């Protein structure tokens, strides 16, 4: 596609429920990133994929958060037992995956998650 797409654009759920957020990267981009942006703050790194593997998941806040990218393209961020503090905009980005992290990350519009 022309850009990074994320679905759904908005998700409202109840505390304790399970949610999945989807990211479709730019075609041909091998690197994919998830960030979380809380109100009034900058994006916070969660996890980074190079191909199918998670190269760095150091930003995942706890074991309720998990992400996959089984075929090296689409990625799904999964949150179990959601808590009100998980409410935020979840951003996905992709890049060509050039060595050394010099390439540009292209961001999607985000998924706004609200946990009631």
């Amino acid at each position, binding site marked *: 596609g022309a*850009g*990074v797409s994320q679905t759904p654009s908005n998700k409202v759920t109840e505390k304790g429920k399970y949610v999945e957020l989807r990211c479709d990267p730019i075609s041909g981009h091998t*690197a994919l*990133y998830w*960030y979380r942006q809380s109100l*009034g*703050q*900058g*994006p*916070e*790194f969660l996890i*980074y994929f*190079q191909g199918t593997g998670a*190269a*760095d998941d*150091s*930003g995942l806040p706890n074991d309720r958060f998990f992400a996959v990218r089984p075929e090296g393209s689409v990625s799904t961020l999964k949150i179990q037992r959601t808590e009100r503090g998980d409410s935020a905009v979840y*951003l996905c*980005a992709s*890049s060509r*995956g050039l*060595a*050394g*992290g*010099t*390439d*540009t*990350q*292209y*961001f*999607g*519009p*985000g998924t706004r998650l609200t946990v009631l």
Partner: protein
Amino acid sequence: AQSVTQLDSQVPVFEEAPVELRCNYSSSVSVYLFWYVQYPNQGLQLLLKYLSGSTLVKGINGFEAEFNKSQTSFHLRKPSVHISDTAEYFCAVSSPTDSWGKLQFGAGTQVVVTP
């Protein structure tokens, strides 16, 4: 580890006036520096980036930034703003010694341009 401080949370500016957005970083290693812009209801878009070489970096939409290693700063400037420059601006840093492309963002500066 590195961190980013954007000194102004909001900057009001009149149309056709210059604007400067301040960004300071802390890091014990060399870094790459970025400025992203987020227009209302849109995703983050790269304005410019510093990787190496000339310390004055020119970006899109007439923006430029200067890398100052001694002051650990990467301030963004535009000599004459338009109404359409109203947006939130984020400074970010990554390190070649850290995981590739893992960006550390500042809290953002909201620019409001009025006629």
